[in-house]
């Protein structure tokens, strides 16, 4: 029976030991909370790094003409800004939230594969170090836009492109492992009684997101692998001279890229679906329709990719199909927005910071959704394509959408995580500062876009000058607001009014009802019974 004894001893130790000390705690940790914290900090650092590049972009665009940077450097800025924000800020933030929350929400002791969880995170600092290092290489970093279309990235890519390719490979490995872990956790680690249709929507949306990630990250890996062999080994996937096609790159890229945009928004839907009922003090309206809507969005996301390519050449039948399929996505998305609004209907509403950010999300994400509908209409997209209208659209869904939901999630759950309430006044200032700034920043971009200002250029025609100046001022203000956010984050971690276990009057879910604030290092050593 010696094995039995080892088994029990291992568990005794494991149940009672707290975190190890020093730096190695973070390097070797298998704890979902530690790893969640690591992801969230990485994401914040990347937000500031990508944000700094956005500041360079807005600085150069403050006036027409070339003032501060060379065009080639400007292109590197737009490229790296996009890559860092998508792969470094938004995605790791949601994975960090999943790490912190999913085990607590489903009553699990930890993630299903704690060691692999550590690896999923610890690949990323290396991947981003490699990506960041490209900026300092001869010929500069990637300058072909975050979509790295061939032949800009193959025939004309700088030497550093190969480092970029491998950084993407590493991020893909990390994402696939992280997603496998999340799926195994959700499908296999739920407490007794936690049936699938009782799971919080954040868990549901992450289950679907993880499925999307596993489906499309390998396709992205395939795309960059073809780039690598086209660059160095004489293949001609994206070279018409050998029978390939540069447009084929766009198809493969957007087969990844379109589900990718839902990867960045589905967990946000889950966050909003948690926050709105709490502060409306009503259960979420239409829970099951929310689940089905998320699943429909995921399925449709695989069938609409070529709406990014209306102007790059495809048969008319293809344009029509991709247009109708794209517009169809507004149905499940509309279901979600209406459900949130209906949840608030006749609720006893209060407006704490998480709720403010959630409401900001609902309004401004919907604006981004509407401009998306406009872009989805093939005949008019010919006018909008590659203009600032597109930039305005995806920043409304990604900044006031995805990023706002992440900030909302921080304010909503940080009292649970740290046991400290954040400073409500500072939180409200952060919200109003950010919201005014972000609209000053992005709303005028709709106008310059419709008037024909192309994206990804360091210089522009004189008639766009005023709107660009307004936009830049908004940009600097929004950037500063996030430095202020950093201050709030550190202040909250260091101390604050002690949070109650339930934190919010209307909060529901295992993490608020069954666990103290802050929760113990290992949340549920005994699975709770879910009624």
């Amino acid at each position, binding site marked *: 029976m010696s094995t039995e004894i080892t088994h029990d001893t291992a568990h005794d130790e494991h149940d009672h030991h707290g975190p190890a000390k020093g730096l190695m705690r973070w390097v070797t940790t298998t704890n979902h909370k530690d790893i969640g914290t690591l992801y969230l900090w990485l994401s914040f650092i990347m937000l500031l790094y990508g944000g700094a590049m956005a500041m360079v972009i807005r600085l150069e665009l403050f006036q027409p003409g070339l003032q501060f940077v060379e065009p080639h450097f400007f292109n590197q800025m737009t490229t790296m800004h996009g890559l860092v924000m998508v792969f470094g800020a938004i995605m790791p933030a949601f994975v960090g939230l999943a790490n912190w929350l999913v085990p607590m929400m489903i009553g699990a002791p930890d993630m299903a594969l704690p060691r692999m969880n550590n690896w999923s995170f610890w690949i990323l600092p290396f991947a981003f170090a490699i990506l960041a290092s490209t900026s300092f290489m001869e010929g500069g970093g990637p300058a072909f836009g975050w979509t790295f279309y061939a032949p800009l990235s193959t025939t004309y890519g700088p030497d550093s492109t190969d480092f970029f390719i491998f950084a993407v490979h590493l991020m893909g490995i990390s994402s696939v492992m992280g997603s496998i872990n999340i799926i195994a956790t959700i499908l296999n680690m739920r407490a007794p009684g936690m049936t699938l249709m009782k799971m919080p929507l954040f868990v549901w949306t992450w289950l679907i997101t993880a499925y999307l990630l596993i489906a499309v990250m390998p*396709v992205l890996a395939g795309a960059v692998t073809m780039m690598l062999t086209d660059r160095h080994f004489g293949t*001609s996937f994206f070279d018409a001279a050998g029978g390939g096609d540069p447009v084929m790159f766009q198809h*493969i890229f957007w087969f990844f890229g379109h589900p990718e945009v839902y990867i960045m928004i589905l967990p946000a839907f889950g966050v909003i679906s948690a926050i709105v009922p709490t502060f409306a003090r009503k259960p979420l309206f239409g829970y099951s329709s929310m689940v089905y809507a998320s699943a429909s969005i995921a399925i449709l996301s695989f069938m609409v990719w070529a709406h990014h390519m209306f102007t790059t050449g495809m048969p008319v039948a293809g344009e029509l199909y991709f247009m109708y399929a794209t517009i169809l996505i507004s149905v499940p998305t509309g279901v979600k927005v209406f459900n949130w609004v209906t949840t608030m209907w006749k609720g006893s509403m209060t407006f704490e910071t998480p709720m403010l950010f959630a409401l900001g999300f609902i309004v401004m994400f919907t604006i981004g959704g509407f401009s998306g509908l406009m872009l989805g209409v093939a005949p008019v997209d010919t006018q909008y394509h590659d203009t600032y209208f597109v930039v305005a659209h995806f920043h409304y869904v990604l900044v006031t959408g995805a990023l706002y939901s992440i900030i909302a999630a921080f304010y909503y759950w940080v009292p649970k995580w740290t046991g400290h309430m954040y400073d409500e006044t500072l939180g409200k200032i952060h919200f109003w500062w950010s919201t005014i700034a972000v609209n000053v920043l992005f709303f005028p971009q709709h106008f310059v876009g419709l008037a024909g200002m192309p994206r990804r250029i360091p210089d522009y025609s004189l008639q766009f000058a005023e709107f660009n100046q307004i936009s830049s001022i908004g940009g600097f203000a929004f950037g500063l607001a996030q430095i202020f956010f950093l201050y709030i984050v550190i202040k909250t971690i260091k101390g604050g009014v002690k949070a109650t276990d339930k934190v919010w009057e209307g909060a529901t879910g295992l993490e608020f009802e069954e666990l103290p604030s802050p929760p113990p290092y290992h949340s549920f050593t005994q699975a709770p019974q879910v009624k």
Partner: protein
Amino acid sequence: MSSATNEEYYVPHGTHWPIIGSIGLALTVVGIANYLHDTWSATPIFVGLAIIVFMMYGWFGQVITESLSGFYSKQVDATFRWSMSWFIFSEVMFFAAFFGALFYARQYSIPWLDGASNNDATAQYLWPDFEAAWPLLSVPVSEKFNEATAVMGAWGLPAINTAILLTSGWTVTLAHWALKRRDSTWLVYWLFATVVLGFGFVGLQGYEYVHAYQDLNLRLDSGIYGSTFFMLTGFHGFHVTMGAIMLTIIMIRAAKGHFTPENHFAFEAVAWYWHFVDVVWLGLFIFVYWL
């Protein structure tokens, strides 16, 4: 399910294997990128790969020890099953990208270069002499590529290789049946047969590559036909090699008596993986060699 299931779920302590793996991965890819630009020798690549192999040896070794010590409950077993299934799904999607490239080239890019659909002007203006065909031997700009002189037939070596892989799928199932009836002798024999067939496949594939380069001048840089041919069969061959190495390890573990009819997920995971490479091969045989 009772609350006991969670108590039994094994949550390991801190681990140093992931950071070692990350260092190995980073060194390997930075090594390859620098090697491609002639700034480094190939040594860092091999050091990186060695670190990855060391990490896998240590990490899997630890998991095997824990498994044999009875740390893993049924629930942990279910985690492994879900994870392996989704890992194989991710591999399917990786191959899907390359199959997608093959189908796109055959259905769209090559006919379009010859003026199909509404591309008549393109064809006239760019390469009026180009004629669409599959397999594409004569590419639009022949100076830029090493054009192949002939097509790789389906009914020689590839057909034999198909038979070999299908047979190996059968032998691994026979090994599974032997394991289930506690027949460790035949378990090892059938696994050995599977490993031999697996490496035999890889050997024949290598021979086929020599034939392609020397006799057909079918090369990686022969245009889109060579690109899709070598990338698809190459990644598949790499996966078969990995699978055969995994089978070898499973064979050694089987010989050591690691598996019982109730508890042998490692065996099953490798068998699933083996069937996956088998199915991919059928896709290759049909779409790359035959049609």
